[in-house]
């Protein structure tokens, strides 16, 4: 039982690692997509922009795919309930994400301006929309989602599509978009020259300032909004379903964990440090430092939400006592142990070869290279 509890906590942390890696790596590419038409004003400029992430977007996107797979494996009830409950949102997310691989691969295959403009706009939309949805999804977890279960754990979603676009969730979505634009801007500033470099730097500066403001408003908002509190239920380390617990709703409950363990304030502080450091780094033109600061900001922002929610993952606003927590939505011990083994071997391997791939493709991308390389996008 204690072992199970330990593995539950480990997988909650790994879920965080996954969501952060997804936000950092996919978010960066999405930011580049969002900025495509702002940073690149001519066709050649846009090709330069695309080729900075050309060799990497596909590998990075796997963090998103792995996000789906790992949540399925480790938190099957979250996978089942969240993705079906947020159906229309998921469709919009998928439909916009689906366009991306084609846009990268097909855009420069034909010379027609209309053809290329079409794919460019597809890249902008497929960069912007998924990041807003990503943030809004996390925002909706803090708000609670209108779902409940029948006796055999069939889940029913009782809300509407528009209900998911409530002001708080939209604000979280914009925060996520701002951070992704920052990361994309920093990436472009580091890998391009002259006018592209200047535009990207400019975008990154503005984006991180917006993110600072939104993160602050979000924190204040969370302090007063209704939060969920686990009153009683099976022991955290026991196998359980979400049918046997009592959960209450009260304003400000999302700050409980911070009040109880004040050292946790360091988590949102990390978010601020990342953003402020990022702002000064990009101003100083130190793009590598700015990139890592942005990654740190993501760590802070996502962990802040995670700590607030703990031990909840997806509270139910319809029937709070059927809320999904770490304890009741996680996989069995055996599955967690196997998954931990695979993650322990493969995550470091992935980090190693991804780093190598960035190392091989290092250096600035410019128009001459793009025009000379028949394999370029």
């Amino acid at each position, binding site marked *: 039982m204690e072992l199970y509890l330990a593995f539950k906590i480990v997988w909650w942390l790994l879920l965080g690692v996954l969501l952060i890696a997804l936000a950092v790596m996919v978010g960066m590419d999405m930011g580049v997509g969002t900025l495509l038409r702002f940073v690149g004003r001519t066709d050649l400029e846009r090709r330069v922009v695309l080729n900075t992430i*050309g*060799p990497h*977007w*596909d*590998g990075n996107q*796997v963090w998103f*795919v*792995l996000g*789906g*797979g*790992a949540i*399925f*494996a*480790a938190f*099957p*009830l979250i*996978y*089942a*309930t969240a*993705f*079906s409950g947020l*159906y*229309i949102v*998921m*469709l919009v997310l*998928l*439909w916009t994400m*689906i366009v*991306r*691989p*084609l846009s990268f*691969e*097909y855009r420069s*295959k*034909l010379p027609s301006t209309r053809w290329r403009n079409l794919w460019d706009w597809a890249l902008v939309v497929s960069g912007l929309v998924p990041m807003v949805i990503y943030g809004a999804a996390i925002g909706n977890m803090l708000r609670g989602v209108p779902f409940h279960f029948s*006796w*055999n*754990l*069939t*889940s029913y979603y009782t809300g509407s599509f528009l209900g998911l676009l409530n002001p708080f969730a939209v604000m979280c979505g914009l925060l996520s978009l701002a951070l992704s634009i920052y990361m994309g801007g920093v990436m472009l500033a580091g890998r391009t020259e002259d006018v592209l470099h200047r535009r990207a730097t400019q975008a990154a500066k503005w984006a991180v300032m917006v993110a600072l403001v939104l993160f602050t408003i979000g924190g204040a908002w969370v302090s007063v909004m209704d939060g969920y509190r686990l009153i009683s239920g099976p022991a955290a380390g026991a*196998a*359980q*379903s979400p*049918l*046997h617990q009592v959960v209450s709703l009260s304003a400000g409950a999302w700050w409980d964990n911070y009040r109880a363990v004040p050292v946790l304030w360091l988590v949102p502080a990390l978010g601020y440090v990342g953003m402020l450091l990022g702002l000064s780094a990009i101003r100083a033109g130190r793009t590598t430092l700015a990139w890592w600061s942005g990654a740190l900001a993501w760590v802070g922002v996502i962990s802040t939400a995670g700590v607030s929610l703990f031990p909840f993952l997806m509270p139910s606003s319809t029937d709070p006592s059927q809320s999904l927590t770490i304890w009741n939505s996680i*996989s*069995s011990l055996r*599955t967690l142990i*196997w*998954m931990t083994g*695979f993650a322990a071997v*493969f995550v470091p391997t*992935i980090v190693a*070869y*991804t780093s190598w*791939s960035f190392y*091989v*493709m290092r250096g600035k991308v410019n128009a001459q290279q793009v025009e000379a*390389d028949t*394999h370029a996008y």
Partner: protein
Amino acid sequence: MINNTVVELSRLQFAATALYHFLFVPLTLGLSVMLATMETVYFITGRKIYRDITQFWGKLFLINFALGVATGLTMEFEFGTNWSFYSGFVGDIFGAPLAIEGLMAFFLEATFIGLMTFGWQRLSRGTHLLVTFLVALGSNLSALWILVANGFMQDPQGAAFNPVTMRMELTSFGALIFSPDAQTKFVHTSIAGYVTAAIFVSGISAFYMLRGRHMELARRSFRMAALFGVLATAGVITLGDALGFVGGHAQPSKLAAMEGMWKTEPAPAPFNLAAWPVQSEQRNAWKLQIPYVLTPLLTHSLDAILPGVDTIEADAVKRIRSGIPAVQALRVLSAHPDDAAALAQFEHHKDDLGFGFLVQRYAAQQDVSNATEADIVRASKDTIPNVFAMFWSFRLMVACGLLMLAYFVVAVIFSLRGDIHRQRWFLKLAPWMIPIPFIACEMGWVTAEVGRQPWTVFGILPTWMSASSHSVAYMVFSLVGFVLLYSIFIVIEMFLMIKFIRKGPEPHVTGAQYPIDGPTLPRPGAPGRGLVDGLSVSASASSME
């Protein structure tokens, strides 16, 4: 309450998205291995023609790959969006291979495909070859893990129901991954991908030879594809036979439907070469039989009894009766997890829980306590998949397989004789073969997944319970959306593919550009020629294992 229209629409959507996805996957699987083979020849011989061959097919590979990635995104999330109950019920087992697929295979494939495309100038020849091999390894590993996951749906091994968490949980990871169905189907499916790629490459090469274009590239590519294809097709057929053998034990209902066996017949049973199955009357309106052949074909013995539809339904009735108390006990346990009487009742009947769920669909208020005799009989009839669809999709797949085998045998003969470019009738035929492996793959999917019905997890969880509780309007919206979007994509993909095939390799790739290699293509048997051919053969043979 579950709405049957929603379930049917969910099935339709899954079938549509999976079948679209599966148009691109086999070619990716096979072409990645062929690219690795081609590049190996380049690495060893150092002849530039092989680099150009690799790069040309690599370009077509990427056009196809983009759509495989795009449509694959949907698959990773569709269990959650549309099969919510399924996901919660078996996610503890089924999710793991999907996650491992991401960790072990997708990252490998996607990261190195970037380097494979962009790294020609930056990597040494050896390193680039390694990168290409890693792409091929990644795509084949992804096939392994997705078929481990699918193997669990076909023949659930290594799992047991836990009444506390109200779901299936993993009991043996080894049993899950070494499930005979999963392993056999992995080899069958990945080699089917090699066949697809071989037909694709040979068909396009034939098109060039017919026009007298890019002869150097076309003849070499054709020979590789022919050798690759003949081995792979033989492999697919062998493994398909093994799959029938394995599947017969795990899923007698699938087998009965595939063969149109309405009655259990004394061994050795006759084989229906062709028939017109009528499900409502449980008979074949007409049939063309070969006596005694079916039993040895499927069981590799003469005296094994193959259960027909009648036996399978009778068996189902018994299990449904036993499943009803299992569902009743579970309902008590849901509210009172410690109820000892309910627990004892559940333990006694738990193996038939799925059959209890099967009749729940027809019982009044979907409460098994209200199930009547008529409901039980109706549910037992559900255990037989659509016989007509099964019978003919299977036969279509096999016919395509045999046709391709014949094609490759002829192709190899012409190619090794060295007069393929003079066999104009064959060169004209070859491009028309390109759709055949795609039809075979799609029919294979239909045989495997329609044959699994009425279950999502065979014998454990019925399809009707597995779907998400969406409204009909949502389902219509998403189904129409997916079909529209994917159809647009496929039109664009075909357009680009055909355009780039017509365009051919980069302009500098013509025979005249390779004076060092010798201006004429050496004939088989000529000195110095055996090395290259020998290499390409052994490389394709080793990737086959």
